[in-house]
């Protein structure tokens, strides 16, 4: 996964449609936590977007926190989660 080699990227997780992590670069407990929480949030975000306009769909979700940024790229069946710390 070439994304992992970018500057500041802490971890990458690939999650399937049910929220089960498939491939990860972090440790197991962190992965499971991130996968579960972000899967739910992505579903919520996607349903929000589609409620407002049914023709629309979620393409990218970015959560910026004090310490780092979590980026979620959703798809029909999978979810790619990238955690980056840009201030390094």
């Amino acid at each position, binding site marked *: 996964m070439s994304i992992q080699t970018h500057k500041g990227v802490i971890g990458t997780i690939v999650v399937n449609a049910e929220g089960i992590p498939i491939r990860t670069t972090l440790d197991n407990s962190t992965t499971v936590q991130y996968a579960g929480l972000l899967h739910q949030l992505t579903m919520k975000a996607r349903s929000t977007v589609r409620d407002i306009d049914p023709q629309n769909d979620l393409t990218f979700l970015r959560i910026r926190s004090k310490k780092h940024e979590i980026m979620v790229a959703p798809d029909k069946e999978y979810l790619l989660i*990238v955690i980056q710390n840009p201030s390094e």
Partner: protein
Amino acid sequence: NKKKNKKELERIDKSHPDHIFPLVLTSATQELFGCRADEDVTGDDPYRLLKKEDIIQDMKTRAAISDFSPIKQDYPEDEILLVFDRDFTYGQSFYLVLTVDAKESMLRSPAEVDGEEEEEGESEDLSEIMVQKTPEPQAWVSLGSEREIEDESLMDTRPKLCYKVSRLRRETGAPLHFSDYSTECVECSPYQDSSFSTRRMERASGVQAVPVTSSSSSQTVWKHKRNMWTQYQPRVLDEEEKENILLSKNLKNFLNSVTLRVEVAIQQNIIMNMFVDDWRDLAEEVPVLGGKANTQLKKYQSFTDLNHSKNKTISYINWHPAVSGVIAVAVRERLSYEERIDSSTKLLLNPALILFWSFSDPINPQLMLECPDDVFCFEFCPSDPNIIAGGCMNGQVVLWDISAHMERLQGARLFEDEVTDTPVVRYCAVSGIENGHKAPVTDIQWLPDTFEVSLELISSSVPVKTVCVMFWDLRAPRVVSQSQIDRKQKTEEKILDNPHGVPNTFKHLNLTWKPLIRVQTHIHTHTHTHKQTQTFLDGEIVYTDWKLEKDNESGRLFSPKPTHCFRVHDGLVNTVLRSPFFKDIILSVGLWNFAIWKEGVTNGPILQSPYSQKNCTLGFWSLTRPAVFFIGKEDGNLEIWDLLEKTHEPSQTHTITTAPITCIKPWVISVKQQLLAVSEHLGTLHILEVPRRLLHPSSKELNVSMYFEKEVERLIYFEKRQEMRAKEKREMDAEEQRRKMVGDSFTLDGYTYTVV
């Protein structure tokens, strides 16, 4: 009949829609068509489909008396709907439905409930197309309800009459006359008026339908309390499934499509650090703009002891590392060498002292340490602040132990009422004169535990033209060097008794103290931790490494020769000091100028100050700001140099006294307060408060290292240029030579040859 029918038609037409045609069917017609009232057709089953053929037949046969004669319209279908109108909604007992659509809708509406689901499936598309429209407002059709409202409401039939009654103006304020009026008095006695006791039988009141609410609560009984817990585990896929998914094409496509977006986002973050708070960064500059109070050194306190430091000069200052607010000064005589010899007897009677001052008592020193001779320099032991080591004028190294007086120093404030004499502490160990230095000890440094021997001192002295650096070992003698000790003990004669109750801490060293290593070199004044940088009497700076090396031939240990030697200062170098922030930046102060060096850079000093008019006596780095250092001058001025501001002149100059400054030492009390102790040649110790601007480094101040790097590069560049220049010069000279030769020509055999 026709007329009557017409009238009926007209009457009927008014109150029914066009597609309904009310009819009266005689019993004969009813029997004929099988729609007898209440027999064939009932309220529940009012619909009958009649064949058009039959109706036309009937009309033909019975002509005028046919009940269907009034119908003049043509009907497209074969069957016409006859509805039994039980309630006479349209005025007659039957009515005909004249249009196909109406018939359809009528037939369908009662069956709606049953056939709804079936129809739904078919008409789903229709419902999708049908967009719900908000009903459009239509004009209000009066149906007679407003009359009731008008009857009930109250309205004025005529405008209200208004009367104003007032007394005659001339009677206002006039005196009142009361008189009896008994004759025409009308009695008003109470009587029962029956009109008030009538019972209302009927009353009109408004009613509103409101749901009845009541709140109530119930509680379940929780009889058996039980601890319950659930344990869960995240769902995980097997390895096989994971492998399958990973290899699937779907995943590949997904990753391909998603990667671009994610990379864009990552790069955006890398390009601009979005966690930068610009507002907060801006605020850092603000304190610098403070007024004069922020930038000047403020006078805090000054100490002078009339008894002990009159006519004397302070040679060294040191803050007590453990107790805040206590400072120790070494006081020595201000006499030149000849004068010393002259008044040597007098000096013997007045022992030299180190005074301890505390901020709470500016007049009396807290503690006095007695020294065998004037102390040039002294240091607190970093691991145990009760131990103080000092170097004397006669070359001896002295040790004091002040643990007994620690409470006095610490609790100095409590004893303000008691006027006790200042205790005098005698030294507890002193080096033997034969083994010590031959000249005044100019500097003492405690070594950290990086060497094999612990608790060492380095002392260094500057006899004329030679320099001696000695390592002293403070531990109890080991078994290995037993033989040495034995020998020493034999020659030991003068063992000082312990008068004055001096602690026995270092008794084993008393007078037997022999330095571990002695290095004799032609240089010195100041030393510091192991990588030594030494300074020349004449201004050269030498860099050596203190690691002992074994000489392969003789097996003896000796220290290596100095590695580098520079001549930068023209006079006596009095300070060599490392920066507390950068381990490899060294400040050296000479007589006329100062220089900053970087370890490892052998080309020269990174920064060399311009020559000043007055002699510099001392230099010291600031403890809190990496780019600031203080230079003390011969005329009593204290210069504050800020490398980030200006490098060609000091950023500030303060006049402290008129006498030359002998020592500067800063001390950080808290984050907000920093004190600078400055001692002068006349024997007064000034304590100044460092302004706020010099307390806090700005965030970019560590960039001063970048400045040093730049300077290093500059030096390297200069050297390279010099080399290049030299090379060019050589080339040019060679060129000249050749050209000269080229111009030569000689003749041979009648031919003229020219050298090319």
